[in-house]
């Protein structure tokens, strides 16, 4: 992290990155002294390696949400499919949700393996121009639980950033787990020199979800990641038998649009809940190609267009 002096540090703290960390008089009695004094100092040399590795990647986009189950992986996967419709574009997806990787299934490449080549790890290709990397490819069995604490997760994320041979990409989408913790901090830190173009924040309309997503927006502010926009998922439901519309997750507090306004970030659009989206993800196919006539498809493509407009 760039802020080297923690908020609750003692007076005259030299900063956790300093050569003097843990050694000056001010450090006496600080609970962090031992850690500061023993950890290696100076910038992480791998950050430069990651920058060099990702020089062929034009756009790096994080998909974030403080809340789980709002559709981060669905959005990431379907966004990748929608971008890859253009054969001129090269698209990559990396799934850093170490404990719950959904991307292999959503992209229809579950059970595939990653190959090691001289140039690095070879991602799995869901289509000619669509490369995928996930911890799911490294597990022996899909029911295996990855019971890892933070540092081990960080190590793997670093490898994903440093060792995967993406080649030239127009878009690299990074799917994240819910929250604002190790994975997110590490990503931002590792990509500091490579540069992140911004974050797509996904939410659902109800207050319980928005409360967590506000935290995520504050996280972006804190670490200096630009928010490309907020996309609202599962907004409204059209009954398959009577076509009547209703809100499964009602926006009691103005929904995502109002939250985006409050934070001064773009609102990219709302996508209604369509059971066929979930079905497409279960089968690993592109929803917008399978069901182009669905209102959810049209809404989704509007969000994609709005996102691309933010980038250009």
């Amino acid at each position, binding site marked *: 992290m760039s802020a080297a002096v923690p908020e609750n540090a003692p007076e005259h703290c030299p900063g956790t990155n300093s050569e003097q960390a843990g050694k000056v008089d001010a450090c006496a009695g600080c609970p962090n002294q031992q850690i500061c004094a023993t950890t290696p100092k100076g910038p992480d040399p791998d950050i430069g390696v990651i920058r060099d590795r990702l020089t062929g990647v034009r756009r790096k986009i994080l998909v974030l949400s403080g809340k789980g189950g709002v559709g981060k992986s669905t959005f990431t996967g379907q966004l990748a499919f929608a971008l890859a419709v253009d054969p001129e574009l090269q698209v990559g997806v990396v799934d850093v949700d170490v*404990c*719950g990787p959904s991307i292999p299934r959503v992209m229809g490449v579950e059970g595939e393996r990653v190959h090691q080549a001289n140039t690095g790890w070879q991602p799995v290709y869901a289509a000619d121009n669509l490369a995928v990397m996930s911890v799911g490819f490294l597990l022996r069995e899909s029911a295996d639980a990855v019971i*890892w604490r933070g540092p081990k997760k960080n190590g793997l994320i670093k490898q994903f950033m440093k060792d995967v041979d993406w080649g030239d990409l127009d878009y690299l989408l990074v799917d994240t787990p819910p929250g604002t913790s190790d994975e997110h901090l590490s990503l931002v830190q590792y990509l500091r020199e490579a540069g992140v173009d911004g974050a797509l924040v996904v939410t659902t309309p109800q207050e319980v979800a928005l*409360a967590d997503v*506000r935290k995520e927006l504050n996280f972006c502010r804190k670490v200096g990641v630009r928010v490309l926009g907020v996309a609202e998922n599962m907004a409204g439901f059209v009954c398959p038998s009577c076509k009547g519309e209703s809100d499964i997750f009602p926006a009691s507090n103005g929904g995502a649009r109002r939250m985006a306004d409050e934070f001064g970030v773009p609102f990219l659009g709302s996508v209604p809940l369509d059971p066929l989206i979930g079905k497409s993800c279960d089968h690993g196919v592109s929803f917008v190609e399978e069901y182009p006539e669905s209102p959810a498809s049209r809404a989704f493509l509007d969000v994609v267009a709005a996102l691309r407009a933010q980038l250009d």
Partner: protein
Amino acid sequence: MSSKVAERLASVENVLLVLSGKGGVGKSTVSVRLARSLVRLGYRVGVLDVDLCGPSVPLLLGVSGRQVHQATQGWVPVFTDETQRLCCMSIGFLLQNQDDAVVWRGPKKNAMIRQFLSDVCWGELDYLIVDTPPGTSDEHLAVIENLKEYKPNGAVVVTTPQASGRILPAVALSDVRKELTFCRTVELPVIGVVENMSGYVCPHCAECANVFSSGGGEAIAEEFNVPFLSKQQRMESRLNCGATNTRHGAARSSAY
């Protein structure tokens, strides 16, 4: 340190963990409903929210924005009403601003959870329900480790029904599968699987639509040989005020 936890929890009869590998399946909703149903059956219940990055329990119990008091015996949890039968502890009570992000790495989260388990004076409780974040990582390990001496009764695993047939387990379920494997690995008994969002009743035509497909929870419970507790039919549109449904409580008490 953990003996302090055992001491602190000596007055707590049962400890249940609510887990799910997947986010947004309704762990907090199920925790809160379970708590309210148990209170209705006459028990004293505490809810501990260890989701540090996204605490939802205060909102669901209608106590967000309240403060925790520090007494000589420790932190006093927040009670939902004067009858003092339902209390709750969450990081949400410790934030200056509700929207502040808790940007913490593992060790700091572990320390906070240890403090929650060792410093909160719950008093006499029949049930302590621990609501967890999604995944199988620091928070979960911290809870299990600190409760090692206490031996929690077990875990309630929540899922949604996305299962495209029994052969192809779907997105939410494959994460729940991981959670069940986690429970096996850490030797935590699974009390059962609760399937949430099992269907949505259209307010216009009263037709029950399977928004997230069907049958998955039951299939996975069978596969792992753990009890299937209940199907929470219909997503309540009362997500913001805390639910009043008692069906779940009935299902739970019969499971005992």
